[in-house]
């Protein structure tokens, strides 16, 4: 199983974000650097959820917001390593929608279950594969430190 490294501050922040937007889904980007040991996440960036029509069970980040996040990451010598979002009153497990909408191969997708407003499990999934036809999520171990 691969690992993803998060600072304690990032881990706390993405869980707090899920509580802040409950009962709606939160979403944001993970900024980090890649090594032979996998992604190390240095920071998270909160993003707006453009799916205001169904924010309790869908999220989408506008591409122009992503573009600005990527520019800032690049200026610091870092990259978009992946994304996080919350599942209000739903398990921290990727859904069919998550899978179909996942296109950042080689990146990290972190999901936090928020139960009755409180962050519960947080799980990470690596989008493996080399093409849309081969892509699949692999569970990852989250290392905090």
């Amino acid at each position, binding site marked *: 199983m691969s690992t993803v490294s998060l600072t304690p501050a990032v881990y706390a922040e993405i869980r707090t974000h899920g509580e802040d937007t409950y009962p709606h889904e939160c979403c944001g980007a993970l900024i980090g650097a890649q090594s032979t040991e996998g992604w190390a996440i240095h920071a998270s960036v909160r993003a707006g959820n453009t799916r205001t029509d169904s924010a309790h069970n*869908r999220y989408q980040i506008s591409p122009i917001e992503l573009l600005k996040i990527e520019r800032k990451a690049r200026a610091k010598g870092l990259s978009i390593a992946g994304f996080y979002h919350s599942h209000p009153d739903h398990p921290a497990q990727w859904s069919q929608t998550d899978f179909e909408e996942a296109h*950042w191969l080689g990146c990290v997708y972190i999901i936090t279950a928020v139960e009755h407003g409180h962050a519960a499990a947080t799980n990470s999934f690596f989008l493996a594969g080399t093409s849309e036809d081969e892509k699949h999520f692999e569970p990852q171990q989250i290392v905090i430190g």
Partner: protein
Amino acid sequence: MTIFIPTPLRGYTGGKEAVDVQASTVSEALDQLTTNFADLRKHLFTPEGKVRAFVNLYLNDEDVRYLPAKEASEVKPTDTLSIIPSIAGGR
């Protein structure tokens, strides 16, 4: 112009996050990019040659889909083209 490559596609540009090309339109820039890095083509285009639906292209700060000339839009050497795969999901 400079084309910025998103994280998932850098494996096809030798790890480069930016690639310089000489082109007069967005379409030419993409052609040159995928000529130089042939493996990128299937990630950016459908078998019919259209840009994949989940691939967003930004000429500087403008979404190419909404430019009057779309991919035929003219570009200058100082312009940037950013490739941004979409991100969405939900429970």
